[in-house]
């Protein structure tokens, strides 16, 4: 199929460019590692509080950190597209018969692969802190993380084509990402908060992904929570693909 072939081509091209500077993949891990080492231990006493999810603090905190990486890598991937837009690389692709969805899907899949790498490194680093997670929950979590990453990257690329400027892109992404970060209970579970905040948090699609991943990491598999996490993420992904495809198709003078 043409879309698969075009997506693979863009994916391999984008990945080979990214791997020329692999150090940045690891540098992108610094923030979550600092959170894990310097903020995570503060949560240990909180595990006794009413409303704190069952299990070790690492099982609650690491899924949140994984999604935090997603926000700060995939959701900011659009900045790379701005450089390609400015240098005319994107225009060069748009004069070809290439499938428009493949043009961003290949890039977004590259972002997901880099995200997987960062996530696995973070999980390994969390093991000495006491993290214990089975293979199946980990794989299921990675799949969910990949879907969230794909969603975030697609929206980021659409935003880049819409805004066309780093000056506008940075505040816009922060305006969206920070409420999402806070409302999704990435750092502290929303179950500790007041009811009104819990209700508001349900608006954020990430909340359901976080809940699903925490459920998987806790090893106490709540089928409904996990299903809801996948279902909401799936709908969010479909929406983001539609938005990004439209942005790549319509981006004309």
């Amino acid at each position, binding site marked *: 199929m043409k879309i698969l072939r075009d997506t693979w*081509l863009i994916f391999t091209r984008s990945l080979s460019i990214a791997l020329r500077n692999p150090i940045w993949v690891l540098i992108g891990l610094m923030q979550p590692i600092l959170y894990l080492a310097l903020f995570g231990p503060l949560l240990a006493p909180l595990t006794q509080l009413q409303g704190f999810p069952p299990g070790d603090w690492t099982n609650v905190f690491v899924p949140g950190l994984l999604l935090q990486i997603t926000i700060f890598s995939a959701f900011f991937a659009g900045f790379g597209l701005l450089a390609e837009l400015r240098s005319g690389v994107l225009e060069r692709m748009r004069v070809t018969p290439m499938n428009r969805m493949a043009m961003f899907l290949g890039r977004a899949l590259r972002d997901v692969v880099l995200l997987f790498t960062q996530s696995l490194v973070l999980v390994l680093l969390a093991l000495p802190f006491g993290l214990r997670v089975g293979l199946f929950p980990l794989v299921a979590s990675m799949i969910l993380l990949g879907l969230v990453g794909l969603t975030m990257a697609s929206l980021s690329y659409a935003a880049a084509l819409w805004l066309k400027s780093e000056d506008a892109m940075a505040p816009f992404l922060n305006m969206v990402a920070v409420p999402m970060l806070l409302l999704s209970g990435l750092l502290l579970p929303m179950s500790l908060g007041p009811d009104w905040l819990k209700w508001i948090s349900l608006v954020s699609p990430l909340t359901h992904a976080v809940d699903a991943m925490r459920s998987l990491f806790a090893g106490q598999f709540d089928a409904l929570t996990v299903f809801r996490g996948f279902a909401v993420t799936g709908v969010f992904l479909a929406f983001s693909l539609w938005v990004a495809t439209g942005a790549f198709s319509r981006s004309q*003078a």
Partner: protein
Amino acid sequence: MAEFSTSLEKPDSRPAGGLAAAMGRPAAQAPTGRAALSIRNLTKTYASGTQALKGVSLDIAEGDFFALLGPNGAGKTTVIGIVMGLVTKTAGTVSVFGHDIDRDHARARKFIGVVPQELNFNIFEKVMDIVVNQGGYYGIPRKVAIERAEEILHPLGLWEKRWEVSRTLSGGMKRRLMIARALVHRPQFLILDEPTAGVDVELRRGMWDYLRSLRESGTTILLTTHYLEEAEQLCKHAAIINHGEIIASGTIKDILARLKSERVTLDLAAPAAQQAAALLAGYRPVVVDPSTVEVEVDEGRGIGPAVVTLQDNDIPVQMVRPKSGRLEEVFLRLTSGNGGAP
């Protein structure tokens, strides 16, 4: 700089099969008369209200080397942008080898190769990757694209540089890389937007030779350029666009025939420009400096009698030269707002 003449091989020194083989066609294809590009009543009004095109109609025959000329802001880039699918038209139709760019855009784009004015490749990618990936964008299998890259990079003098990152190339090599990239899917219609902008004279001449050989191999070429000498040297047909309208079109010869008079510069052997101007009053003279005078020679009159007149009055003429290229003269007169009457 001898870069182009030493590294760009002429058609007869290319690998077996030559450029025609590289382009996948028999050598020396004759024009068929079929329209490579057909534009009808094309209009474009931008969201700002600017009317960039006001009903442009244009036909470029298969195998032609066609120049689209016009001052900055005339509408050249808009026309090209619409053909390439980068700009949405307001009204009108555009077809490439009979394929409408709206209804059959994927097929129409396969016919087109584009060499934009600005360098637009990732400077951290290798030469080979840039060319081969471009083939992939057109659905060409990687193995085939690699073979074609070799066929194209050799005559462009880039084969030895194929594994180098493109940012290490010289300016001339980058320009040639843009051409190589545009040719990898063997387009039958090549759009060159200011291909020699900013390159030195020797390199430009070398590129002319290459472009001529491309046309001889059967590729239809649309050229926009600010170097009117370039259009005069390379193209058979041309159109001049100004304020979004075609104000002249036809063969270069026909367009030049519109020049009813020509400005000629006379370099005198002595500082006698004032006396010369007085003697050549019928030639509408302008004194440029004490030893130089410009005159206007009407069609059929010739400059000979003027030179004889000066010599008879002991004002020897050292050199006679046109003030500018003839096409440039037509262009300036047509676009200077004097009603298009050269």
